[in-house]
């Protein structure tokens, strides 16, 4: 296994290919894993939680929508939302019939990240085609008060293009791995987007005036005879239809040998970190030609590689603290005040392994796919394959809370390994007050856990089940035995419909859930 991981990493380094990331993680994770039978844990009895969600659906565009078509985001029609306006009607029909099947979605349309900005007024998604779509919340209007909360497309732009690294003979995908908003600094909005290698800073700004009046051309744009120019004319700015522009302000490149898995903006609003499998780099937002490597876990000899970094995030208030998670299930907290290089952590969070549940898959399923600080900065949340854990920053030896996301899969790990699902990287989010956490699962299910009442709920994001303004019904998965009405059997779960990316409005109960090429926005029931 060790050898395998080394080869995979080398391969990533030199010749590489699409499968390398997964391949590498797979191998790195399997190191030292002992083969034993998988134990089946108890499935927690999910209680009924009154549902407060109403759905809103948006489908990834087959082609980037033109800025003029203002209301692209809409409630689901009985007919699937049709966005490819340009196409011939015949083809459209065929497409429509396919639309019901998620497999129709071209690879490029699959949403790969989703993120609210700090006010919650904007929501950005990135997809595998390198596009970023920004949604803006509809302003309160007297005529249609119920429309408040609807998110409409605000700006769409191509953030990354596929590239080829000629020195390493390596294809660089355009897929957007992460998007992070910067706190608003003037009337424009700024976000960072990243693919495997390059981080870009985008400015999204509005323009509602344009200059009018030429000296050398008349009103119709015809060139005037120079001899007829008898006086000078200064252009005047006239109001025009609102135009939203996205411009790339900075490109932070050439700093990562491996694939970037996360980016995080510091609370000092001056720096950010970008993290790949083995290193964390610190950048100044204004300087693109240099970055500082602050964590490097690459061993001198790649054969000794036992773990990779899976995610990293800055503390929301303390500008000197950041945490990074590893494929071995541990989280390290680093203090940048202590030293310029943070190879030595100041806190190490890890739960001792329970020998009774140890199996061949133990190490793989304990790999942390996401780490998030709570808004108040007291807790850390981590997601591994089967659970979400909440850690108190003051307690390193065990998590404060552990929530089972889909424990019923414990018995199916073998087949999940076969179909590679075991390497899916689920993300997790806090609500605005840190009292509820949310994370995704399979079969278009996503889970919410209320930390105070200890209640949890499974909900489904799908076109079939969520009519506009309908209230979401809790779903239940049953394991073996008799299947009651409304329950779904573990064996009939669709593992290709996975919800990996979700985000929660920073102040309100509005969530956005990315299910392959569909974006669902649910919000608190409006009276």
């Amino acid at each position, binding site marked *: 296994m060790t050898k395998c991981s080394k080869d995979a990493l080398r391969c990533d380094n030199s010749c590489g290919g699409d499968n390398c990331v997964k391949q590498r993680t797979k191998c790195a994770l399997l190191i030292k894993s002992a083969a034993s039978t998988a134990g089946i844990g108890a499935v927690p009895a999910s209680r009924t939680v009154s549902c407060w969600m109403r759905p809103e659906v948006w489908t990834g565009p087959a082609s980037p929508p033109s800025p003029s078509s203002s209301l692209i985001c809409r409630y689901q029609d009985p007919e699937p939302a049709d966005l490819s306006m340009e196409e011939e009607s015949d083809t459209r029909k065929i497409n429509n019939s396919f639309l019901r099947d998620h497999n129709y979605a071209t690879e490029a349309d699959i949403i790969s990240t989703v993120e609210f900005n700090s006010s919650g007024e904007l929501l950005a998604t990135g997809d595998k085609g390198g596009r970023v779509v920004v949604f803006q919340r509809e302003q309160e209007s007297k005529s249609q008060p119920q429309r408040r909360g609807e998110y409409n497309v605000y700006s769409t732009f191509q953030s990354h293009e596929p590239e080829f690294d000629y020195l390493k003979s390596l294809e660089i995908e355009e897929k957007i791995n992460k998007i992070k908003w910067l706190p608003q600094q003037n009337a424009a909005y700024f976000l960072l987007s990243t693919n495997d290698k390059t981080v870009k800073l985008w400015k999204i700004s509005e323009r509602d005036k344009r200059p009018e009046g030429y*000296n050398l051309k008349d009103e119709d744009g015809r060139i005037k005879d120079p001899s007829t120019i008898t006086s000078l004319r200064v252009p005047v700015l006239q109001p025009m239809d609102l135009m939203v522009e996205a411009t790339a302000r900075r490109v932070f490149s050439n700093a990562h040998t491996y694939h970037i898995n996360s980016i995080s903006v510091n609370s*000092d609003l001056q720096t950010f970190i970008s993290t790949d499998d083995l290193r964390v780099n610190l950048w100044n937002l204004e300087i693109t030609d240099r970055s500082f490597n602050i964590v490097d876990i690459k061993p001198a000899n790649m054969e000794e590689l036992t773990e990779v970094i899976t995610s990293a995030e800055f503390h929301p208030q303390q*500008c000197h603290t950041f945490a990074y998670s590893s494929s071995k299930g541990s989280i390290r907290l680093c203090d940048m*005040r*202590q030293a*310029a290089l943070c190879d030595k952590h100041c806190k190490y969070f890890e739960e001792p392994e329970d020998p009774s549940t140890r199996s061949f898959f133990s190490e793989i399923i304990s790999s942390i796919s996401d780490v998030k600080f709570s808004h108040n900065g007291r807790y850390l949340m981590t997601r591994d394959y089967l659970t979400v854990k909440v850690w108190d920053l003051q307690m390193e030896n065990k998590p404060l809370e552990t929530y089972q996301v889909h424990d019923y899969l414990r018995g199916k790990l073998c087949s999940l390994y076969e179909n590679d699902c075991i390497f899916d990287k689920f993300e997790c989010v806090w609500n605005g007050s840190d009292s509820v956490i949310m994370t995704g699962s399979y079969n278009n299910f996503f889970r919410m856990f209320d930390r105070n009442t200890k209640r949890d709920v499974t909900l489904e994001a799908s076109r079939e089940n969520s009519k506009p303004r309908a209230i979401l019904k809790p779903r239940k998965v049953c394991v073996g035995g008799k299947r009651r009405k409304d329950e779904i059997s573990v064996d009939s779960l669709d593992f290709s419909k996975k919800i990996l990316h979700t985000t929660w409005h920073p102040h309100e109960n509005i969530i956005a859930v990315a299910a392959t090429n569909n974006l669902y926005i649910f919000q608190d029931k409006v009276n």
Partner: protein
Amino acid sequence: MAGADGDDSLYPIAVLIDELRNEDVQLRLNSIKKLSTIALALGVERTRTELLPFLTDTIYDEDEVLLALAEQLGNFTMLVGGPEYVHCLLPPLESLATVEETVVRDKAVESLRKISQEHSPVDLEVHFEPLVKRLASGDWFTSRTSACGLFSVCYPRVSSTVKAEIRQHFRTLCSDDTPMVRRAAASKLGEFAKVLELDYVKSDIISLFTALASDEQDSVRLLAVEACVSIATLLPQEDLETLVMPTLRQAAEDKSWRVRYMVADKFSELQKAVGPEITKNDLVPAFQNLLKDCEAEVRAAAANKVKEFCENLPEDNREQIIMTHILPCVKELVSDTNQHVKSALASVIMGLSTILGKDNTIEHLLPLFLAQLKDECPEVRLNIISNLDCVNEVIGIRQLSQSLLPAIVELAEDAKWRVRLAIIEYMPLLAGQLGVEFFDEKLNTLCMAWLIDHVYAIREAATCNLMKLVEKFGAEWAQNTIVPKVLGMANDPNYLHRMTTFFPLKLLDLLPHQALSEACGQEITTKQMLPVVLKMSNDQVANVRFNVAKSLQKIGPVLDSNALQTEVKPVLEKLASDTDMDVKYFAQEAISGECLSSSTIVDKLNT
């Protein structure tokens, strides 16, 4: 008005105005750079009423256009009608002061500061000060950061009530929610303190300074260190201890290495600002701690300051302080684990010898130099070697030569060509210090070996080096030691080595008076070099042959016309009918050049 000038003169202006909004950034930029021409053509009235409103709304443009605009507007006072109307420039600069791009904002602030001087005291209060207030209480932090840079220019020229308001605004910004604004305020704190009355410095600035220096964000705290320097220079000596020193002490021991780094980096300035007494009592121990800091970056910054700090110590007990307090720390740094620390130290440590004098240098510093000459990191050794002249003045280089030689030889043979290149560049310096005898004995072979190094850059640098040596040691030395060896290479089996023979000649181009042939003079050139060069015209490698042509062209001017006619010309003519295209080309070049140069020589002889 320009309208009366007729169509011919209007047309170019019309083009410029239209290009203000051209699709091409470069054209817009050109047009903005000629904004004064446009304004002049429009006249002051239309500039105020039409051009400036248009420019106020162009903030959508590219950074470079905005930057040029911000700069232009700073020089626009006369174009809007003189100081009376200068306030018309405020709206466009105000909008530029809120853009997100720091360079543009900074330039807008710079221009605002400039035109603030052109405001009358009344206008300053009526127009400028309200603008500062608007920026200071703006919604976005970009405008608030810009405001920080404007307080100091309007404060001295406004009434006392407005002054109180300005102080209040500055206070508010120092405790702003966003670290961006606090950083901007902290970086302008010193500047603002300078224009404040001393009483307010003590009552207001000190409390702000203390607050910023204990900010929760280290990025803010480290800027307070800079402010510390300017505040300390403003205060009378007796107040420093109570008002500034507690904060400075705290900064020197800050939890965050970045703050300590800043203290180390600003140490010389701080030392000058607080005066000799506090330096002795407080800064010496603080400096010792910085030299022993746990973070290598801090140690390196402090090590860089060792010489400057020692130089600026009060003369009366300088030697004693250095010997008892600083030198022990320096000794430890010589064997530091971090190579950046060691090389920072190596770049300044030699300077201590002039301060400490001959005896101390021999007793205490020499062992350190020798240890550093044996350091595993080439950069450390190079830094020591490059500063040899300081020591030479004090104790003479002989003391070092025993260790110096192995260090040089090792660097000269380093596997990294950049290291070899660096040592070659120090060769002329070393030769000067060591003297010709020592050089011939120990280093000459090295210099020759570099001529056949497998890296081109080294071979090239080696020739440059030879030329400098010839200049130093004279033509006779060259004839005896260098020329035979260089010419000997004409028979080398490797054509690349044979080509090295031409290097000294080729460089005639770049360094007209330093090339070997010129340095050696006509005698050597004609008698020794020319035959070899001519012989090489029969070389079987074309590269060598065309280099013969090129060299002949260059040594032409030093040869007498007889040699030119009888020896050079036939060879060039032969080469001009060579089978190789390049050889032919260069030979023809040389022939036409030759005629020129020979004729100039003839001219010279005739006159």
